[in-house]
């Protein structure tokens, strides 16, 4: 294992600041609420604006039109996005699909990477799908819980074939593809079931390369999501603290009561540990130590999920009645937190994988 470090560059600071300001401006509560009420769940022109700033291109190599950075830099963005509950096809296209394609590479993957980085197209990965069948020319079966499955241009779908596992790219607008938008708990991130009735497509990766691409994408997705969860946790803690200072009961600011103060202190303790786990996972992904990638991503995925979930739940409690209203943003984080926890299989699954990795 190489030496663990958290050193940051000037660019990280700049990226954090720019993203923080932009998202505070573009993704205030009112805007999140407007977008979450739409079917698509995002605004194409706002997505285009951030793509133009290179937000979809960070981990893509320069020869493919990318910025040639790594997941460490994407994680800086992720944290800011988590703070503001940004509604965008970022996780589906710029993280999951991009990570799968970066793992697969090859002519088709590279074409798609260029298109995703430039914003010309959006893709997603049907990472929860199982039982789909590729007959050599067409795809059969239904992929469930596909992130932005109702709006992505290209669907990357893992399937089985006579030659083993494949990762197939399918155009969503084909007649043989039917999407059903799901009634999600978290309205800020859309999901769909996608049925393929003999849909033609192109094989992006086959055999081990296909399984590896999906596994890698899930690890990258979980690690980036962990950084998003850190941003969300920091945000709800700030909200709780602000309310604890301003809300008076029995003639005192409620944040002076230890029952509340200690709960917030516990959240701070967990936030800082989660931050370390999430930052380290992103850095591990940029290294070439696969054992460390396995350890770090499983840690971040399991720990940050639970920390955000607890913090978001506590935030409702810390606010009392107002925290239970639709009008207050506490529920938006609460729902985002639960969904984020379950999106890549849940902490128990990650911990079992970690135990396997550690031989315990």
């Amino acid at each position, binding site marked *: 294992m190489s030496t663990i470090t958290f050193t940051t560059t000037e660019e990280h600071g700049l990226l954090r600041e720019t993203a923080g300001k932009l998202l505070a401006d573009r993704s205030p509560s009112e805007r999140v609420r407007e977008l979450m009420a739409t079917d698509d769940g995002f605004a194409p022109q706002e997505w285009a604006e951030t793509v133009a700033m290179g937000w979809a291109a960070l981990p893509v190599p320069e020869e493919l039109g990318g910025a040639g950075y790594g997941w460490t830099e994407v994680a800086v963005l992720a944290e800011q996005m988590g703070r503001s509950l940004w509604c965008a096809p970022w996780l589906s296209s710029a993280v999951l699909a991009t990570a799968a394609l970066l793992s697969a590479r090859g002519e088709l993957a590279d074409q798609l990477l260029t298109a995703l980085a430039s914003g010309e197209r959006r893709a997603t990965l049907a990472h929860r799908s199982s039982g789909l069948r590729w007959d050599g020319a067409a795809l059969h079966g239904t992929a469930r819980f596909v992130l932005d499955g109702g709006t992505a241009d290209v669907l990357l779908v893992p399937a089985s074939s006579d030659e083993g596992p494949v990762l197939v790219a399918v155009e969503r607008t084909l007649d043989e593809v039917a999407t059903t938008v799901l009634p999600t708990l978290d309205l800020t991130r859309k999901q769909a079931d996608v049925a393929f009735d003999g849909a033609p497509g192109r094989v992006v990766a086959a055999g081990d390369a296909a399984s590896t691409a999906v596994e890698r994408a899930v690890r990258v997705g979980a690690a980036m999501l962990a950084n998003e969860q850190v941003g969300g946790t920091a945000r709800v803690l700030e909200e709780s603290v602000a309310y604890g200072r301003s809300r008076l009961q029995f003639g005192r600011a409620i944040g002076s009561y230890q029952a509340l103060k200690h709960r917030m*202190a516990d959240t701070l303790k967990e936030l800082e540990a989660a931050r370390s786990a999430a930052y380290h996972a992103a850095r591990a992904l940029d290294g070439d130590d696969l054992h460390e990638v396995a350890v770090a991503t499983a840690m971040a995925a399991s720990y940050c999920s639970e920390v955000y979930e607890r913090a978001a739940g506590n935030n409702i409690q810390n606010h009392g009645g107002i925290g239970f209203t639709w009008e207050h943003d506490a529920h938006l984080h609460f729902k985002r937190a639960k969904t984020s926890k379950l999106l890549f299989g849940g902490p128990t699954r990650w911990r079992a994988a970690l135990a396997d990795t550690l031989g315990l």
Partner: protein
Amino acid sequence: MSQTLAPTDQQQLVQEALDALFDSHPPASTDHVEFWGAQYDAGLAWVQFPVGKGGLGVNPRLQALVNDAITEAGGSVANRRRNVLAIGMGAPVLATHGTAAQQDQWLRPMFTNEEIWCQLFSEPGAGSDLAGLATSAVPEGDTWVVNGQKVWTTYAHTSRWGMLVTRTDPDVPKHAGMTYFVLDMQAPGVEVKPLYQITGEAEFNEVWLTDVHVPDEHRIAEVGEGWTVAMTTLSNERVAIGSNIPERGEGTIRHAVEAWQAVEHRDDPVARDRLMQLWVESEAMRLTAIRANENRKAGNPGPEGSTGKLQWAELNKAITEFGMDLIGDEGMLYPPGYAFSSPELSATTRDEGLHQLYLRARANSIEGGTSEIMKNILGERVLGLPGEPRADKNIPWKEIPRG
């Protein structure tokens, strides 16, 4: 003076002093006490202290260079651990608040370990609320007469000197009426008794002080400034506690992992999940310590430097509770037995088995600031939440209810 030197010049100054010291006193072959004395004289005991007081007036970070060099050359830095309260806390207090005469009297022999020090702060009636302490010091000529009881005193039975906080003015609010002394532990009226803890050992002592006469020249800082001096001591305590980072998988979690590896079938998914929860939190805590160190070194410390004590304490309890469950029937036993002895080293620096750790961990969330106090600090000083209303504010100490 030398702090104005450029970092490279400071490093060169230290290196030259080291070379000269090693020439005159080869670390591997010189008697430890003699070597430590020469090290003090060379200004390499606390490099940030002034010249003539065990230092060279350079950046304290350069101390690590000195310690590493001594270890590599086959010398010993064990004095720092054996006399940790003196070298880690007493010395900074003397450097900050002591007179030149006090510094000259105490710094060198504490560094050579010829004089061990202890800390006489906590009392039966003043634990978390240290500023409520009741041990009195009453002036009598050019001495002070001290009466009271101190508790949780590490090393009291082997100490030559004690850092003592007393109440000298009961008629003013509690923080204002305290004075700090260095106590001669061999003075008449000082009585030390071992305090047996739940492990059956006595790492700590109770100290009774009955009409003990303390010369005024052993007073540190002005009368009434005891609280400020005590805070200097405690801030250095937190620095001393938080500095060493174990390797991955080391520390308390190792005991739970070993207990799991000894389980016959290892087919309990609930236990396995719990083990990994604890492993992950241990590792996240370790990473946070690394991150905190880096940020501190970069001159950019943040909240990540304040959460470690709370997390460490609570996690140690959780891990050892789980470990005892894992070993099942063996968890009903206490293999080391209850020995009723006074170990030479504090248990936090010894390598103990799961059973001992399980009991010892209960103190982790009490000593050095209870978890409740740590949460108040995090809540109030880091998050900026308002404090609890205080019932003892602005009233004379003697009118504060006690019990």
